């Protein structure tokens, strides 16, 4: 279900959060579905249960999941905020790529053309 990159600099609880979010956004984990228990995940992934608890706590704080005492954690009703966050992440990635592109001598016009092309392609796809 999960693959964690233990060589990554990204803390494990953040990796866990990101992966769970992706699963929820893509509807692999649907609303009110139960998340694996801390114990199961710890055993399955061989990671510290405190790390999993932390990821769950953060996800609950951000409104992605809710917990039922004595039962476990469940996927919360879908919110548009999730998209907003993903957009912000993509924007940051783009910023990095675009600045490298410009730094290496790529032109602004090229980029704008590229965006237009993608837009056209998308529209054709839609039709």
């Amino acid at each position: 279900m999960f693959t964690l990159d233990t060589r990554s600099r990204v803390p494990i609880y953040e990796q866990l959060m990101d992966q769970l979010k992706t699963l929820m956004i893509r509807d692999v984990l649907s609303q009110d579905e139960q998340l694996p228990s801390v114990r199961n995940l710890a055993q399955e992934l061989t990671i510290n249960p405190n790390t999993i608890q932390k990821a769950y706590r953060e996800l609950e704080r951000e409104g992605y999941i809710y917990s039922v005492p004595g039962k476990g954690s469940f996927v919360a009703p879908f919110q548009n905020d999730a998209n907003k966050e993903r957009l912000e992440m993509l924007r940051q990635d783009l910023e990095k790529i675009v600045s490298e592109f410009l730094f290496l001598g790529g032109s602004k016009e090229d980029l704008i053309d590229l965006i237009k092309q993608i837009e056209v392609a998308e529209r054709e796809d839609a039709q």
Partner: protein
Amino acid sequence: MIQATAVNKTFEDLQAVQNLTLHVKKGSIYGLLGSNGAGKTTLLKMMAGIYKQDNGSITIAEKPVFETPDTKQHVLFIPDQPHFLHQSSLKDMGSFYKEVYTRWNQKRFEQLTKHFRMNPDKKLTRMSKGMQRQAAFILTLSTMPDVLILDEPFDGLDPVVRQQMKNVILQDVADRKMTLIVSSHNLREMEDFCDYVGIMHNGGLLFERDLDELKTDIHKLQVAFKVLPDKEEFLKGMDVLHYEKRGSVLLIIVKGNEDQILPYVKSFNPAIFDLLPLTLEEIFIYELGGVGYEIRNLIVE
């Protein structure tokens, strides 16, 4: 769960542990890191009740450890060199532990022995270092400890056994809220395993903190400019631990909040800018560098 307060320990004229205060929460996995000779093993042995501190107090679940059999029933220590009774096999050691530890779990002992493919009748002294360590783990985990104190535990274990041992330990942490304190120099491994770390140097504790908090509070910046801004001017607005110029790329270690550092650096219009979290190894090196224990490269004769 484990509380050490103002602990001192001297061996003849060597002050091994100096006015050390430390706290480990229940169910936590605490990584004790430090330079060579920092006093980690001495501290662990005091926690396990093998040494008595000169002064200060060490308690586990609010009870002292030294010469307190009740506490020692549930506080298990695996030293860096496992020790077994003379001429004994794993089976013999098992029956010995069974007499000593009231919570001994025979079923678990047999299950682990089989799972790790140990021959219970072979003499332990004739086994390799790694096999002896496996035996020590099996015996220790079969006593169902509440607190596990490990000194360089995964040293000498192959990656397969290492992963499986960790898995078994983590199940105990998840199920029974077992508390762990682990010393190691393998920071790569500690990074994934621990949730709390303390760094020791010269007998004292430099700091102890939640590992993730520690990592979100310290960053590595890699910045390059088309036109280099004035160094003083640029560094003024940040809490800089380390500054290095490699060609036209600046490498800076900064303490502080990401949300403040990002816009600040961006206001100088960098051509390339990366903000990375530090690895535990880097944190260790820069923090110890701060107290004069830095890497000095030597070109050998």
